[in-house]
């Protein structure tokens, strides 16, 4: 029983990072921008939050965990948003190909994260690894009292604050897209920008805002990973492929933020399953780690088989909108 408890809890912890990434990507994709830079943006968010906390903890005598949390969250959001801005300027204003820009942004972001993650401590005149234990403790704090409830407590309430932020964000994103006027406009931009333009919607502004906000949300995923999962440190390539999996989850969830919530936790579970299946040796563990990717491939194939209208991507996803070429 306790093994299952630990497994569920770890699966959720693993999934949160991807939940942020996937929510951000849905927001972006609803505007018709297919941002393949999300993996890089998650690195940017993660390292910026880490650096913010690092310099804050270095500058103050007695760093407070809560202020560290606020500072690092702001840094992560700003830096990740900057990544989204670079993407928007290049694809919306300068009309460059979305895939190419996204891949370049990922190269840049991953390098950005790894470079500063490996060197910031040295650049600041210190030695060894970057570590912000005080701030990380704020991120890792469990919900008091109710986390003591048997079974439900450890599984649902023993995660850090960002876990609940992630779920709340996904739910409010679903509400925003389905029930609000602005959400409707945003979806219109993604489905048919020419129609939206004719209806007086400022297509470029929607694309910019959705992409930058989406990137900022994805950046929180990177922040969650370095703070809660790694405990305020950095290892090379630490976020790994979670950004790509986040993009895959968007397809898995057929562009519905509610599906993203359980989809992310399912992917989290798949990615750690190899630790909990008994009787695996080192070799077969490696084969088990393929599961999330194989599942993604199966989902891709499956969704392409059945062409239901509700399960389709935004109609003009990945297609740039040029007003004069209507």
């Amino acid at each position: 029983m306790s093994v299952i408890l630990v497994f569920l809890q770890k699966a959720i912890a693993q999934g949160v990072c991807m939940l942020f990434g996937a929510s951000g990507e849905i927001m972006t994709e609803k505007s018709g921008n297919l941002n393949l830079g999300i993996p890089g943006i998650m690195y940017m968010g993660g390292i910026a939050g880490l650096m913010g906390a690092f310099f804050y903890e270095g500058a103050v005598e007695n760093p407070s965990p809560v202020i560290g949390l606020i500072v690092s969250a702001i840094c992560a959001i700003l830096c990740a948003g900057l990544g989204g801005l670079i993407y928007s300027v290049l694809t919306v204003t300068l009309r460059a190909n979305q895939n190419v820009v996204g891949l370049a942004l990922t190269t840049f972001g991953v390098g950005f994260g790894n470079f500063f993650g490996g060197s910031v401590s040295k650049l600041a005149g210190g030695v060894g690894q970057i570590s912000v234990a005080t701030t990380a403790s704020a991120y890792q704090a469990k919900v008091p009292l109710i986390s003591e409830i048997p079974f439900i407590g450890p599984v649902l309430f023993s995660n850090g604050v960002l876990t609940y932020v992630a779920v709340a964000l996904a739910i409010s994103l679903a509400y925003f897209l389905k029930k609000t006027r602005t959400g409707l406009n945003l979806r219109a931009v993604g489905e048919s920008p020419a129609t939206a333009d004719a209806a007086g919607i400022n297509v470029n502004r929607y694309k910019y805002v959705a992409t930058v906000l989406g990137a900022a949300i994805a950046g929180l995923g990177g922040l969650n990973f370095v703070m809660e999962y790694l405990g305020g440190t950095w290892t090379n390539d630490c976020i790994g492929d979670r950004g790509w999996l986040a993009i895959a989850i968007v397809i898995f969830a057929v562009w519905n933020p509610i599906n993203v919530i359980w989809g992310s936790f399912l992917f989290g579970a798949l990615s750690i399953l190899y630790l909990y299946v008994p009787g695996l040796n080192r070799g077969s563990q490696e084969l088990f780690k393929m599961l999330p990717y194989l599942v993604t491939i199966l989902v891709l194939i499956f969704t392409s088989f059945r062409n239901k209208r509700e399960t389709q991507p935004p109609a003009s996803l990945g297609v740039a909108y040029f007003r004069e070429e209507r």
Partner: protein
Amino acid sequence: MAQANMTKVQEPFVRMVKRDTISMQKAWAIRLIAVLLSLIVCAIAIVPITHQNPVEIYAGIVSGAVGNSRRIWVSIRELLMLLTIAVGLTPAFKMKFWNVGAEGQILMGGLASAALMIYAGNAMPNWLLLIVIFIASAAAGLIWGIIPAIFKAYFKTNETLFTLMMNYVAMQIITFCIVFWENPKGSNTVGIINSKTQAGWFPSIFGNAYVLNLIVVLLITVVMSIYMKYSKQGYEIAVVGESESTARYAGINVKKVIIRTMALSGAICGVAGSIIVSGASHTISTSTAGGRGFTAIIVAWMSKFNPLAMILVSAFLVFMQEGSIEIATQFGLNKNASDIITGIILFFLIGCEFFINYELKFRKKHEEEVQA
């Protein structure tokens, strides 16, 4: 325009006009400006980190990339690898098939050649082994490329994410093999394969280890540019890329073209893997492809599939990468600095295409006064 006089429409400060044509010189001048701007931004990024002046930094980059003959050959080796992969990706992208799976195809090719080096190292003479390695690695890359292509052709399965996921499956297969091949035991790395016998290594020609790489890569590049430009199949690829409906109307078997082209693209990427493993690193790990599969996509796209432009763009990127790695090591920083530099350069190169395709027209003060 008559209305403009009556209601006095506010002309925007700047508007863009699509260019019909642009002279070769002007296009290259714009690209040169973008390159210069990117160099300035790179310098701005490096200066606060190293506290050197920009001139010293660029002197350092030049010396790091081409400072002595060993560095020159390392740069050439890197250039050749990037070029092979970009050439391999060209047919797929010309067909508008987003093959983001070059990394996986390279890894599978590398895996095939590593396996042959380990298991068949002493079974045959080296020249024969190398031929077998080329064939096997091409086949491995081909299989990895053709799987997403079949699904794309028959079920329109999204190829971008499919090929991407294939990269990670390939990585896991490699870590799986490393468990059996690790040397020394417990190190979790394969180490240099056949370091004594050098079986399956590219032989030195004229006393240089990388001349064979050069020959193979140039051969692939020349053959592929002829294939793309003058063969019927190359033409079919271009038509399918422009419009699938047109292709179908013209009697081209679109499914067949998609699968055949991806087979070719995957095979070349597989050979690139063997060039990396047999011709350079002589080992295999999950970072054997090292992101080159992604950088090569951008190289191929920006060069508009022109082989000469591809050489130029790859040379510039490799030059900056090798140079910045050198600077980073000098200051004891980590070598991911080169990815940041690559990213900045790519942003500028991608962005400048806009100014080649469009012309900015600024509002003219005088005209408006006259009209008013």
